[in-house]
């Protein structure tokens, strides 16, 4: 059991009031999480005490900054059980991590006609890079269908695998339906068919214990800002042999071993993929976020979220005219996307905001998934370690108020 009262004290923003004088009820952590004091202070202290550019500097500050930057990488590696920190590449976010694979690995390994399997529940960040590659290279894309219940159709997946795909890239947890996909099974089947795998773990790493070795993932991408860390930094995990064989992504300083006027030799891992001055303070914040989550315990966080989500779905489904999307709470993370008959999600979100309740409305960067369900948009409430059942009650009361206004 989490001590949510104590956890909430660690998040300064949760103490504030909204524009309209209401207490903030933050139900939008799937978009970005709030940040605990430990993270804010780690970044603050870095700028107050240790700020310098990393690597090659020999003065005290440069050495401290480099050590902090690299220690954070080691913390992140341990957090997802990566065999070594050199397999953690800092990126700007999950999107950039996926693009790194699309630009470096895929352009070196895929040719016209090669099949890439995605799913119908992907975020735009795991669709558009592959569509761009399709336009450039003539690769083929196909999609594991989503069932009415909001689960991946694994029988259809097995059929797709008979077409010998080169890559299977899929979300570990849907940012709309909340569905937690059976990643280990998907990867095992992909490997048996000879495909490389890429896991979009933007929603799973913040909320579940993720072990890249147990999953046997080839690539796995996630962002700091959804897991109590700062914006502007994320990570790509990759298997060492794949990363070693890949050409560099962006060219510039720090990613080189040696530069002549006409040639260069790339640096070793992980620096080969980190050109230019990186987000150093953000890396420090990322490391602090990982420490914070570890101190609470990922299993306890997942259990708390499950309890809140199951309660939220039960309460929401009491409301006449509501439709909650996605599978049963046992198969999903802390997300509840819904529609209300006759009321547009933007209106729902706007009216709830007057009561201090922050939810998201729109297609949540998953337009094809919304088209599949025949709806332009949904309202989405999402939950994290700091949310309470009382907040779910406030949400439900707020929705009744919305219905009354449109009554």
């Amino acid at each position, binding site marked *: 059991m989490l001590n949510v009262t104590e956890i909430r004290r660690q998040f300064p923003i949760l103490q504030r009031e909204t524009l309209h004088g209401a207490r903030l009820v933050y139900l939008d952590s799937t978009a970005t999480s709030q940040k605990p004091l430990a993270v804010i202070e780690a970044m603050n202290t870095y700028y107050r005490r240790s700020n310098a550019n990393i690597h090659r500097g020999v003065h005290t500050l440069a050495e401290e900054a480099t050590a902090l930057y690299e220690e954070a990488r080691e913390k992140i590696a341990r957090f997802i059980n990566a065999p070594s920190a050199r397999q953690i590449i800092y990126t700007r976010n999950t999107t950039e991590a996926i693009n790194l694979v699309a630009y470096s690995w895929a352009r070196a390994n895929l040719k016209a006609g090669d099949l890439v399997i995605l799913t119908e529940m992907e975020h735009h960040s795991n669709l558009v890079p592959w569509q761009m590659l399709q336009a450039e290279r003539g690769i083929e894309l196909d999609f594991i269908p989503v069932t009415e219940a909001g689960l991946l159709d694994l029988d259809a997946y097995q059929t797709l695998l008979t077409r010998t795909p080169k890559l299977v890239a899929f979300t570990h947890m849907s940012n709309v339906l909340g569905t937690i996909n059976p990643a280990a099974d998907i990867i095992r089947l992909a490997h048996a068919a000879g495909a490389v795998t890429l896991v979009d773990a933007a929603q799973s790493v913040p909320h579940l214990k993720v072990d890249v070795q147990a999953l046997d993932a080839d690539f796995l991408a996630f962002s700091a800002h959804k897991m109590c860390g700062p914006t502007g930094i994320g990570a790509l995990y990759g298997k060492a042999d794949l990363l070693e064989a890949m050409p560099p992504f962006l060219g510039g300083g720090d990613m080189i071993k040696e530069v002549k006027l006409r040639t260069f030799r790339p640096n070793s891992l992980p620096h080969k993929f980190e050109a230019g001055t990186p987000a150093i303070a953000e890396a420090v914040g990322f490391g602090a976020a990982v420490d914070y989550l570890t101190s609470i315990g990922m299993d306890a966080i997942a259990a708390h979220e499950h309890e809140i989500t199951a309660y939220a779905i039960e309460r929401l489904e009491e409301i006449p005219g509501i439709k909650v999307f996605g599978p049963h709470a046992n198969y999903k993370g802390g997300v509840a996307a819904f529609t209300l008959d006759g009321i547009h999600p*933007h*209106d729902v979100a706007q009216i709830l905001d007057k009561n201090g309740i922050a939810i998201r*409305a*729109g297609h949540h960067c998953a337009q094809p998934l919304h088209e599949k369900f025949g709806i332009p948009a949904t309202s989405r409430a999402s939950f994290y370690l700091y949310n309470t059942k009382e907040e779910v009650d406030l949400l439900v009361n707020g929705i009744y108020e919305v219905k009354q206004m449109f009554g």
Partner: protein
Amino acid sequence: MDDLYREIIIEHYKHPSYRGKLEPHDIYFADNNPLCGDHIEITMQVGADGVIKDARFDGHGCAISQASADLLIESIIGKPLEEVRQLNKQHILDLLGIDLGPVRLKCALLSLKVLKAGVYGLGEASDELVE
């Protein structure tokens, strides 16, 4: 919220007077708000004298976008196209009688963007049309 969801907005959203499609029509244009998926299409019949004889809108979206469209259509019937070319965002804000933040302003202005792109015979509706 009483401001943003004044009775007039809820009323025009729930019971629009000008929802539909004119057949035949002289001007047609449609566009989306990519952020929220709001969709508006407008059809108009224009007389030889350049006066809008009749107009309708269709589409889906939030109360702000749909009520704005209904109010806008109501305000242009019987007006010369020349006058429609001069309309800007203030016209919509006057019709709604409220102030809007930047996100909801896009919802409110979608119908005017579509209308002006249609009147100018443009290929696409840009934000500059309603500044």
